[in-house]
């Protein structure tokens, strides 16, 4: 199969098109502007629509409209823009509308910077907007994985009629790698959405709505949503196990940091350090199973993130005080190199000897 050298943002856009997405709405923000420029070139060629909204608020609501009309639709943005989109995301959850939202995370808070970061983990995995809800959140650690997860993201969104977020970062967006596109879905072959707004011809009218002024009915609606999230939590959880067989020090990293940590682990392994890694791929649902598997052999966990400590909260819940957990973070758009992570591993070994 042909391998193409592509930038992460452009590979993301092409993967969406190959996943059957024909409607892209977005607003420029660094570091993901090539998604929009790529879409603006490609969408007209494949019979789709690229439209630049007047804001992230407008863009996410255009996605909502296109989704309500029955199409696979998406947007892409970066942290400050994603904050603005939370209103629309919450409405789409309430309305049970699928969509894919890609966040190429940059350092915050506020306008922050344009360096790569993982500081939107909590926003992405704990709901993000108002109301009781979750998004399935997928965290790629390479451009190939970003490509593959785009297809999964659209499928999961349609399966649960709920938005899905792909949580990447500026590094994944801006670097280039060789990728393969192992799928090509013609949107005309996708199953008809029996709830979509396409005109009440020969049927009664359809309504897409998140409002219910009867609290008891709204409670039931919420329980129905929760049942979907429970199902998704069981079905959509995914992770990678890396050199865990005899691991005494277990790193927990996602996305770009996991990629860097692999090099550090390989280096430490050459020096006979028993170290491995759990890499959550679905950040929500967070994978519990690999923690249970490694607990007996693990002496300690080491969480490394490009933020001030966010996923570590989920690791604490997963480890449940059974082992010590160390955290090392770099917020604000800075990142690690393999030597820095290897040193963190060595420091833990040294502490053990003292």
């Amino acid at each position, binding site marked *: 199969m042909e391998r193409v050298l592509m930038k992460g943002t452009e590979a993301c856009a092409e993967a969406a098109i190959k996943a059957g997405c024909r409607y892209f709405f977005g607003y420029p923000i660094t570091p993901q502007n090539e998604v929009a420029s790529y879409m603006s070139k490609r969408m007209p060629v494949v019979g789709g*629509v690229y439209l630049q909204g007047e*804001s992230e608020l407008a863009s996410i*609501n255009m996605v909502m409209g296109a989704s309500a*009309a*029955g199409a696979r639709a998406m947007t892409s943005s970066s942290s400050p823009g994603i904050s603005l989109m939370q209103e629309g995301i919450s409405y789409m959850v309430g309305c049970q509308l699928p969509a894919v939202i890609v966040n190429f995370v940059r350092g915050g808070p506020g306008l922050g910077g344009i360096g790569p970061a993982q500081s939107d983990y909590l926003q992405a995995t704990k709901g993000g907007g108002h109301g009781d809800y979750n998004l399935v959140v997928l965290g790629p650690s390479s451009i190939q994985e970003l490509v593959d997860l785009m297809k999964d993201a659209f499928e999961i969104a349609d399966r649960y009629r709920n938005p899905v977020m792909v949580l990447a970062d500026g590094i994944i967006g801006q670097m280039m790698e060789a990728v393969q596109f192992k799928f090509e879905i013609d949107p005309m072959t996708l199953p008809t959405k029996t709830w979509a707004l396409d005109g*009440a011809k020969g049927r009664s009218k359809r309504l897409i709505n998140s409002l219910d002024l009867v609290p008891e009915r709204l409670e039931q609606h919420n329980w129905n949503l929760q049942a979907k999230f429970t199902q998704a939590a069981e079905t959509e959880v995914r992770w990678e196990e890396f050199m865990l067989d005899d691991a005494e020090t277990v790193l927990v990293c996602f996305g770009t940091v996991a990629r860097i940590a692999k090099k550090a682990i390989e280096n430490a392994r050459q020096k006979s350090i028993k170290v491995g890694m759990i890499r959550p791929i679905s950040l929500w649902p967070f994978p519990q199973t690999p923690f249970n598997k490694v607990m007996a052999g693990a002496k300690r966990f080491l969480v490394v993130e490009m933020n001030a400590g966010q996923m570590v909260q989920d690791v604490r819940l997963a480890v449940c005080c059974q082992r010590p957990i160390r955290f090392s973070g770099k917020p604000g758009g800075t990142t690690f190199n393999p030597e820095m992570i290897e040193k963190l591993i060595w420091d833990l070994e040294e502490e053990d000897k003292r």
Partner: protein
Amino acid sequence: MSTQTYRPLYQRPRSLSPVRNSYCPGCHHGIVHRLLAELIDELQIQERSVIVAPVGCSVLAYNFFEIDAIQAAHGRAPAVATGIKRVHPEMVVITYQGDGDLAAIGTAEIVHAANRGERITTIFINNANFGMTGGQMAPTTLIGQKTETTPEGRDPLRNGFPLRVSEMIASLTGPTYVARVAVYTPPLVAKARSSIKKALLAQIEGRGFGFVEVLSTCPTNWGLTPLQATKWLEENMVPYYPLAEFVGGPQG
């Protein structure tokens, strides 16, 4: 014995749902709903229309029309409508919005949908206050008008000036039809009907964006009887908000 056949002269439009609406006595939403439903019937677009309901008094508009419907976040109806229209260009997409929704929180969305010449139709109800939340100041509240949040009357030094939305939309190059109408006398109702029809036809014929602002009473929050409210609208709102076809009329 002779048999007589009767021809109905007046009946509920097919596109108007046979339910009680949620509007206060004397409010003009009901008249505008009926006009819109009559036109959906007349133009034979019931089976390909969708209404985007706002947040505000007409939030439940989706219950009152026998067409597909979606409820949008506050002010975002034109963006949602844009998304639907881009997927289904053959459909007739209508946003129905009040002055809190369209003239305050949703100014960006309406201005840009209009400026794109988006093939949608917007019905804009201007009743000079936020009705649903209990009568607070809206961008359309008149100078000196008392509301829940302007107890001494709207002071332009503190709260700025009433926003003439139709004139603002008409200043853009994008729109195909822009008009301000009222429905407090039968001739005005007929004119309003004609304007809404033109705005729908602009979309149906693929010509562009249609916008109709309807001056409406809010007897409940204005603290007036329906008749007093009509008089207040005529004497206070019409002089500041002139009734006219701004774009796409005989002179447009």
